[in-house]
């Protein structure tokens, strides 16, 4: 039985903690005995050590945390030039000693300590967005990329109560990969809907989302499916991601075992419909956690395709660090099982600076104005938490 004011007391105690959406509710992890700050020099060693814990049966026999975008590039041998930004760590993992299960309704009364007086600033305005957009369209025509996601970022200065933000966010936008981290000098709040990998024993799945439709009164699940099926642009983007994820899985799975388990289905959320596929395969023998992460990360659906040349194009273009955005949050259990999401629809608050990054795709028939506005809509739901 969870004590009535558990969350409030934990939040007041200043102890770091993590909350991650589970099947039935939420899991809270705290009492961290280790905290590992990742660099490009220690990341491989860290991943290899995760499965070397002495005990493998306790629910806390795992490392939980996040990989930022840059370190996932480094992991697959792609360099990212020095960028502007918050100088936030590239990745942090924790070893919890306590895990507590919560129901879907989180019981927490907000302390009302949001202090944000400054408006959000955007790092790329509409005109510069158009310039980048047109540049990438040329790259699509010349075949260097087939699909690429331009990231824009909104930032402000604010002192926030991360737990309050998270509780309000999941109330309005419950998502299967929602999570929050609160530590001394930073917090992350995310309502990510996208699972990048789920590995249990020798079976692995990924569940890419490509295609989002805002709910209206006239729409229902079947009509949303008809919309996506008929919309050539959405279909093409989705097809590309399905083939790319099949290929990523094929790197680590036995030949002939990679299957599309759910092909192009609709998932319904409070305010939107997502176009989703589920792809899975049986892992080859002797595949390590490191092999799996290198094959699957960074998640293709938020980068573009093909992954390597598209990452190189993005890294030449983007002057500001993506930090956590399009990185991955999740855990590696000591028995080798893993679950990781793609960090999107997220807020990073570091030393009282907040940033919300969003992205949308450029394919040959997308429109700059539409994608720019789409980005704003995605950010708006998060910016509203500051009111």
């Amino acid at each position, binding site marked *: 039985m969870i004590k009535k004011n558990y969350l409030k007391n934990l939040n007041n105690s200043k102890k770091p903690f993590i909350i991650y959406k589970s099947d039935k509710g939420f899991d809270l992890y705290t009492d961290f005995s280790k905290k590992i700050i990742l660099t490009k020099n220690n990341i491989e060693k860290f991943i290899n050590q995760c499965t070397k814990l002495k005990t493998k049966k306790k629910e806390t026999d795992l490392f939980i945390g996040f990989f930022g975008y840059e370190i996932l590039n480094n992991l697959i041998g792609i360099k990212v030039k020095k960028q502007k930004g918050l100088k936030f760590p590239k990745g942090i993992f924790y070893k919890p000693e306590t895990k507590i299960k919560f129901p879907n309704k989180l019981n927490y009364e907000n302390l009302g300590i949001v202090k944000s007086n400054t408006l959000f600033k955007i790092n790329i305005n509409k005109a510069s967005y158009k310039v980048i957009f047109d540049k990438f369209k040329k790259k699509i025509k010349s*075949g260097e990329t*087939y699909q690429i996601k331009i990231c824009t970022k909104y930032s402000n200065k604010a002192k926030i109560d991360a737990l309050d933000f998270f509780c309000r966010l999941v109330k309005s936008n419950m998502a299967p990969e929602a999570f929050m981290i609160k530590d001394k000098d930073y917090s992350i709040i995310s309502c990510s809907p996208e699972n990048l990998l789920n590995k249990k024993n020798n079976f692995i799945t990924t569940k890419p989302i490509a295609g989002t439709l805002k709910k209206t009164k006239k729409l229902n699940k079947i009509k949303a499916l008809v919309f996506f099926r008929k919309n050539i642009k959405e279909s093409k983007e989705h097809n590309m991601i399905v083939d790319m994820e099949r290929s990523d899985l*094929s790197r680590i799975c036995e030949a002939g075992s990679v299957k599309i388990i759910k092909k192009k289905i609709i998932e319904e959320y409070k305010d939107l419909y997502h176009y989703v596929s589920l792809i899975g395969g049986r892992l080859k023998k002797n595949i390590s956690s490191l092999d799996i992460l290198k094959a699957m990360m960074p998640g293709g659906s938020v980068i573009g395709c093909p992954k390597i040349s598209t990452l190189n194009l993005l890294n030449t273009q983007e002057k500001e660090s993506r930090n956590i955005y399009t990185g991955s949050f999740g855990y590696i259990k000591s028995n080798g099982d893993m679950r990781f999401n793609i960090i999107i629809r997220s807020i990073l608050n570091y030393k009282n600076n907040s940033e919300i990054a969003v992205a949308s795709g450029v394919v040959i028939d997308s429109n700059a104005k539409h994608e720019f506005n789409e980005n704003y809509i995605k950010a708006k739901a998060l910016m509203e938490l500051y009111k």
Partner: protein
Amino acid sequence: MIYIIDHKDSFTHNVVHQFENFDDVTCDNYNEINEDKLNKSKTIVFSPGPGAPKDYPVSSAIYKKFKGKKKIIGICLGFQQILYCEKGKIIQQKKIYHGYQSKIKVTSDNSLFKKNSKFNVGRYHSLKLKEPFAAKNFEITMRCAISNVAMAIENNNEKVYGFQFHPESFLTENGNLLIKKILSV
């Protein structure tokens, strides 16, 4: 053994799994070629990939060295790589096909496949072959049913084959059969 040369594409391992249905496969990046394995292989496959054939001089050199000595198969960029080495011109097309499913048909009597048969394939290309194209022993054997753009070449003399579409894509019907047939001749 089949040696697949990866042009750092995000579809290459679908190609690997498809060929593994029929034989042992080794796959290396185009800039990390294992000469020993390349020499020992019976078939060389040029993978899909970003960019244009001129960006991959190593692949062109391998093609020229082994043409007529080993079976060679090219997919998408790999198809264009073969044509480029045969003095074909690869140009941008107006309509761009990335993630596109479309119908193609077999247009030649000399094809390994039945003339006039039509089927759906997955396409990922912004470039195409400029025609007219002519090279000794080569024939264009499949075309887009709508635009007529070249979709496959066959050279049954020297055993060189290429597909502009992706036989390994989930959008392609009977992709495994295509590959099986080509590997069996």
